[in-house]
Structure formats: structure tokens, C-alpha cells
């Protein structure tokens, strides 16, 4: 090797090494086999933060009965879960909303066929400060509260004060569901405060007398000493309904949603065993124990 070549090699070699390291780090995000063979001993569930507690309770109970199978549960959000399903990095995706058309198209491009199973139901409770005199609201009033900046508490039967509107972040499945179901697909007003977590909404509603927010039924019932749950009327002529297991299950409480698990294709092997367990009597008892509503 002559001098010049040596010099070039000296420059090229280290840069190549670092480049290779950098590239492995970037592409290294594992693409594991979404294998559904009966030999599978390890199931991953990823998705909705709303469902993490439920999914891990299922996993725990399931692993007690099937000691040779391991189920791991991670959150991140429904969108994250669906993205993972599309990339083949999870076996099961937990989602608190239906898969979007765009995501479905993307899935078919990647030759993945999302199979939807409704596993539980969740009611969304509207909460206010305990001192707030307002007891019940219609869906229409709720929609106005969350979209119209000029609305005051006096417009819906309260004191003549402004309304402090609290919402979940736009990344939350609950945000989208509330927007679709209650706001009738209108945009939230821009002044709405977007809180990063359910606990932050409970915390704020329990200290701010003018606040209104929405949280999953399980969280609302757990915090019922700190916040007041509003009874909701579907329209002016229907009765006001308090959210509860019973009213969500029968469909009388108007703000309720199904919770889903998405798989790639029909359930098979170990994943099928797990899904069958979730929908069994024992599995649905876990649902009620964790504060959600059973579907079977």
C-alpha cells in the first residue's frame, strides 16, 4: 500500500465503522416474526393506554392458568399499537377506537389483515367540581360547552361564570371518541386545555370550581369523592342517566364505547387460547373487576 492509499484508508475506515454502527442502530428496531404457530410461548400486547390495566390483569390471570406461556403488555396509545401490528412487532393490538381507513389501507399494502374483536365496553364520565350546582347535561349542551368559547355556566343551569374546558390530548383514543360521539365530529374549541393524562384531569377538576372534563368510567368511579359525575341526557326528552356498569351495558348511558383487540388474521394457536380466555366468563369477570363493562 502506498502512502496516499494509506491516508485514504485512514479516513475511510473509521467513518465506515461509525456509519455501520449508526445504521444498525437505526434499522435495528427489531422486526420480529408475528408467528401464530401453536408452538408459540410468548404473546405481546401493545396499544391503548386506557386498556393497559385491563390487558395486564388479563395477562396475569391467564399466566396463572397457563404457566408455560408468557404474555407481555405495553401501552403507548391505540395508534402506536396499530402501527406495531402493521410492522409485525406485536401479536395483539389493544385499541380504544376502531382502526382508521388510512391505517387499514396501509395494513393491506403490507399484507396484514387486521381482525377485530370487541372485548369490553367503557363508559366516558363527564366530571365537574363537587361544588358545582349543575347535576345533569344533555349531549347537545355538552357539545356546546366543548366547542363554543362564549358559553358560560349560567347557560346550562349554573352560576354566571366562565367554563374551564379540560380535554385529553389529541393523541388519546378518548379524545377522538368524545369528539365523534358528543361533539358530533365538530372541532374542540382552541381554548380547551389539553391534559396529558387522566390523572391530570381529575387533579384539575378537583381543585378548579369552574372546570369540566371527561374521563373513563373506571377512573371517575375511583375518584368520586374528589369530583362530581354528571348525569347525561341523550336529548331534552330522555331521562338523565348516571354512568354505571349497568347503564353502559344496557346502552342507556349515551357516552359509551367498545374496546377492541386487533390481530393479524383469524386468531390461531396460543393467541386464540388467550383471546378465548378474554371472552370467557372468567375473562369477563376481570373486565368488571378492573372497572370496565363486560360484553358477554
Amino acid at each position, binding site marked *: 500500500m502506498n502512502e496516499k492509499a494509506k491516508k485514504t484508508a485512514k479516513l475511510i475506515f473509521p467513518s465506515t465503522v461509525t456509519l455501520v454502527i449508526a445504521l444498525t442502530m437505526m434499522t435495528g428496531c427489531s422486526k420480529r416474526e408475528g408467528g401464530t404457530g401453536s408452538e408459540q410461548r410468548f404473546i405481546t400486547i401493545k396499544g391503548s393506554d386506557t386498556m393497559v390495566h385491563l390487558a395486564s390483569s388479563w395477562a396475569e390471570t391467564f399466566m396463572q392458568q397457563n404457566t408455560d406461556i408468557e404474555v407481555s403488555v405495553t401501552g403507548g396509545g391505540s395508534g402506536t399499537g396499530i402501527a406495531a401490528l*402493521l410492522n409485525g412487532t406485536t401479536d395483539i393490538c389493544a385499541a380504544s377506537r376502531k382502526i382508521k381507513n388510512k391505517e387499514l389501507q396501509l395494513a393491506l399494502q403490507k399484507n396484514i389483515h387486521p381482525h377485530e374483536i370487541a372485548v369490553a365496553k367503557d363508559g366516558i364520565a363527564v366530571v365537574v367540581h363537587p361544588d358545582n350546582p349543575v347535576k345533569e347535561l344533555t349531549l347537545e349542551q355538552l357539545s356546546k360547552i366543548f366547542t363554543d368559547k362564549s358559553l358560560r355556566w349560567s347557560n346550562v343551569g349554573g352560576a354566571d361564570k366562565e367554563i374551564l374546558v379540560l380535554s385529553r390530548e389529541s*393523541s388519546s383514543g378518548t379524545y377522538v371518541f368524545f*369528539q365523534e360521539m358528543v361533539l358530533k*365530529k365538530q*372541532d374542540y374549541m*382552541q381554548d380547551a386545555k389539553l391534559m396529558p393524562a387522566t390523572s391530570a384531569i381529575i387533579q384539575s377538576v378537583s381543585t*378548579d370550581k*369552574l372546570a369540566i372534563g371527561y374521563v373513563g368510567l373506571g377512573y371517575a368511579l375511583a375518584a368520586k369523592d374528589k369530583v362530581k359525575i354528571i348525569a347525561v341526557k341523550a336529548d331534552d326528552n330522555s331521562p338523565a342517566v348516571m354512568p354505571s356498569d349497568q347503564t353502559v351495558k344496557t346502552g342507556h348511558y349515551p357516552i359509551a364505547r367498545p374496546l377492541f383487540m386487533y390481530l393479524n388474521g383469524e386468531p390461531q394457536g396460543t393467541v386464540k387460547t388467550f383471546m378465548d380466555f378474554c371472552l370467557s366468563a372468567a375473562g369477563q369477570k376481570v373486565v368488571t373487576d378492573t372497572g370496565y363493562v363486560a360484553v358477554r
Partner: protein
Amino acid sequence: MKAAWKEKAIRLMLFATASTSILIVIGIFVFVGKEAGQFAVKPGLKELLGSRWMPVSFQKESFGLLPLITGSLLVTALATALTIPFGIGAAVYISELARPTEREILKPFIEILAGIPSVVIGFFGLVVLVPLIKSVFNLSTGLTALAGAVLLALMAIPTVVSISEDAIRSVPASYKAASLALGASKMQTIWKVTVPAALPGIVAAIMLGIGRVIGETMAVMMVTGNAAIITASPFDSVRTMTATIAAEMGEVAFGSIHYRALFCVGIVLLLATFGLNIIAQKFLKKYRMG
């Protein structure tokens, strides 16, 4: 000549590790730029100039960056205004006036403040600071730009204190001696001679502090209310660029317009911190040479 060869090999390996960070910075620019570039192609960069950030909508999704940029600017400006007097005051006291024992107590505490995880500071903000701001200023809610700014100032102050203190200490003793010999008092010497002489270092410290502030995410996200509105009032809620990325990245559909818009936010943020760092480096160089 085996030893020489070995030495060369070690040299190469060290060079490789040293150049890694350059490659990573370039890699980040390329990958973030690639996603953001696709946004420029499809809906076009004009979309980013709007004053509405409403990425999840059944009506019309809008990706106007103005409320996010003004939100970040407002919080950063307020935090800087709070940081400067506290940071410089503390640095002057520790370097010029404190007794050695005082210094030994003060310095570790300021360093501990720097080490507190930002989520913990954010939690403290949500539970203590937000209700406090609400009652002190008689607001309907304490979830405001001011709350975010106070928390950010808490995080920036340690950086500013330790770098400014370093700058003030390295002012040559002859300057101070000359000033004192001319009959100036101790305070006059500090404010008229020492601090001005250390100014480039102090400015660099503030720049680095702002760099930390503008990139901070968790604490801000927990206390500013995150409403994407354009405002100049410290008592309004704001949504910063960092909070937007952190809050929305988790749920966004891969490859969607919203996904790419978030990368555009990232580019703006990257350029802002990049610019601040370059300015800070300029000032640091000046003070090291002077």
C-alpha cells in the same frame, strides 16, 4: 514495527468514537428532514404558516405552526426574564461574596437542582405551583404560560449559575486590584469591572440556559394547559413545540400528513437550538480569548 501499527489502530478507533457524534447529528438532520420534506411536497409548506393547530379533526385538519412557535417563544422569554436576575445574582454572590463554607453548601445544592428529573419538577408544578399561581393572581386556572416559565427557570438557573460563576472567577485579579486601588468600593468593582469583564461568558451561559429551556418537554407539558392559541399574556394557556411532539407522536398514524407535520415542528425546534448553540459558542470563544 508492530508497536507503531498498534498505536495507529488505537488512534483510528479513538477517531471513530470522536466522529460518531458528528455522524449522528448529520443523521438526525437527514432523517428528520426527509420526513419533513415530504410534508413540503404534499400539502406544501404554506400549510405551516396558518394560525390553527388542529391535527385531529373530522372537519379539516390544520397544521399551522404559529400558535406553537409563539407558545414556545412566550414561555422561553418569560423563563429567561426570570433566569437572568436569579442566575447572575447567585453567580456573583457565590464567586465574589460568599465565604468558603457558604460556597461549599450553595454549590452542591444548585447542582442537585440541575439533576432533578424534569417529570418530577413537572409534578411539583402541577400539584404546588399551579394552584399557587391560580390563587395569587386570582385566575380561573393556574395552567398558564407563567407556570411553565417558572419551572423552566428552575431548570435553567443551575446551568446559568455554574457557567457564569466560572466566567466571573476567571476575570484576572489585577482588574479588581486596580479598581480597588483607585478607591472603588467592593460593590462598584463587582458591577463596573468584574461583571462587564465576564460578560461574554455570562451571555454564553444565558444562551445555553435558553437552549435547555426551549428543548424542555415534560415539565412544560404538565403545567401549561397545552391549548394551541396565539397569545402574549403570561396568564393564558400555551402549547409549546416540544409538548406537541411529545403528546402527539405516540398516537399518530405512520406516514400520515400529521406525522410529517410533527417532523416539521422538530426541524423548527432543531434549527432554533442549533442557532442558539452557535451564538453561545461564539460568545464563549470570545471570553476564553479575552
